[in-house]
């Protein structure tokens, strides 16, 4: 569904990605793991059009979407939940969710998905009229994911959904990520530092190091790989 070929990105004179290639098949959860600064977020940002790539191709549904502006890529059903969540701090939870549905005009469908968001994360319903910026990190992450779902994506890219969140909430967020994939059939590209968790819910994984794909394999095999175990899974 999502195919990246030889993606190269530079920040000024510093090369951040040296030709990354990866494939995300329809209906799967694929994870991208690696240390800080390996280029995980950069990869997602280049795919979703937040930064321009120097060379390489991004194909979505067979269509070349390389370097399209971000708002056009969302319109194609590829949604990016950025690192740091980026909820609209002064807008209420409901307004945030409605922003997620910005491109949609089907009122009934939007109302239905709003209900679905609240089923997925009941906490959001409790805080429906609260300004998003006043919620805890975990709640903001829930909101960021639900907001992305409101755009009715076919493919979702999640950047570090576990970062800085209480362990109890991480578990419930990851359960929902699996549910989104299974029940709604949304393809997921997951970027995580918590490799254990990411490899546990994904089918396939890529290991990124300093802007290159170091390894790629099934998640099962990566979990057993001694190199991965030592570097990313804590031995």
């Amino acid at each position: 569904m999502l195919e990246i070929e030889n993606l190269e990105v530079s920040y000024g004179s510093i090369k951040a990605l040296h030709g990354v290639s990866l494939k995300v098949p329809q209906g799967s959860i694929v994870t991208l793991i690696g240390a800080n600064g390996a280029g995980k977020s950069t990869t997602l940002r280049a795919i979703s059009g937040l930064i321009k790539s120097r060379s390489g191709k991004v194909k979505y549904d067979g269509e070349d979407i390389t370097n399209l502006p971000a708002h056009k890529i969302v319109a194609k059903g590829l949604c990016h939940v950025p690192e740091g969540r980026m909820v609209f701090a002064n807008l209420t939870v409901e307004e945030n969710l409605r922003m997620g549905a910005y491109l949609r005009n089907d009122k009934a469908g939007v109302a239905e998905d709003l209900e679905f968001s609240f089923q997925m994360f009941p906490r959001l319903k409790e805080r429906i009229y609260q300004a998003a910026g006043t919620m805890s990190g975990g709640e903001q992450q829930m909101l960021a994911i639900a907001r992305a779902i409101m755009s009715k994506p076919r493919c979702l890219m999640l950047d570090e959904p576990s970062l800085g969140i209480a362990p109890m909430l991480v578990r419930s967020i990851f359960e929902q990520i699996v549910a989104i994939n299974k029940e709604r059939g949304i393809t997921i590209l997951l970027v995580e530092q918590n490799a254990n968790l990411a490899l546990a819910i994904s089918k396939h994984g890529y290991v990124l190091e300093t802007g290159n794909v170091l390894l790629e394999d099934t998640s099962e095999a990566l979990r057993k790989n001694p190199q991965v175990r030592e570097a990313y899974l804590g031995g």
Partner: protein
Amino acid sequence: MSQFIQQLLNGLFLGSIYALIALGYTMVYGVLRFINFAHGDVFMLGAFTGLYLNKLMGPILAALPWPVAILIVLVLSMAICAALGILIEWLAYRPLRDKPRLNVLITAIGVSLLIEYTGQLVFGATQQPFPAIIPKVNVGGLGGLTVTMTQVIVSVTAVALMIGLRFIVMKTKMGMAMRALSLNPTASSLMGVNNSVVISFTFGLGSALAAAGGILYASLYPSIEPFMGILPGLKAFVAAVLGGIGNIPGAALGGLIIGVTETLVAGYSDVLGIPSGYRDGVAFVILILILLFKPSGLLGKVEREKV
């Protein structure tokens, strides 16, 4: 006492015009984080558009009842100036979108000078009388107060426009996109918002309000010239800072406060021992005080965000 109320009213009428201009400063700051110093000149263009519309459509307007005539002039000149505002952003500011903010600020000063001197070339440098579309009648005889029809129209129009603006910003999709963009442009583009369109819309909206302010101001003080936008523009900028830059209700409140303070200082100059010529300095004293004691403005919040 009645003199005080009279001054207070005069201040509110003037302040409601400052408020209209201040709204444009604050909205543009909200989406682009820079002060559009050419905004006061759009206010001037609004007044001149009104003047020229009157010259062009004089006989037609004269045949209509005056409330319809003023409405037509107001709406047309708002529309024309909205288009001009969008054009200014597109030509001058959009190419600098990814450049340091200082570059944009300096460009804004350049645009301001360009409009003023082009205005001088096209409209002429002398003062021109603004046609009295609103009849010169006194409607408020109560307790010795003087309220003219013009003042009534000014305040009613200003309030109506502010209510309309609040509706657009709080209740429409475009308004929500404006607020989202001002909070986080990256996230709004990830929601599918075309930020450039929202920025254009914001410029259009702000310029329309400035144009309305120009027409209303010219109705109160019916003598216009190409540099008439400088002082009201600067005062409205102070009003926006006073209310908390980026905060829409704050800009409206700031405008009213500046208008009232200025009028009271001028009206009680003998009591205060300040010559009434200092009225224009009042806004800037307020600016210095607000920057010293509450730089975030009256309604501006120091934003704390959890990460």
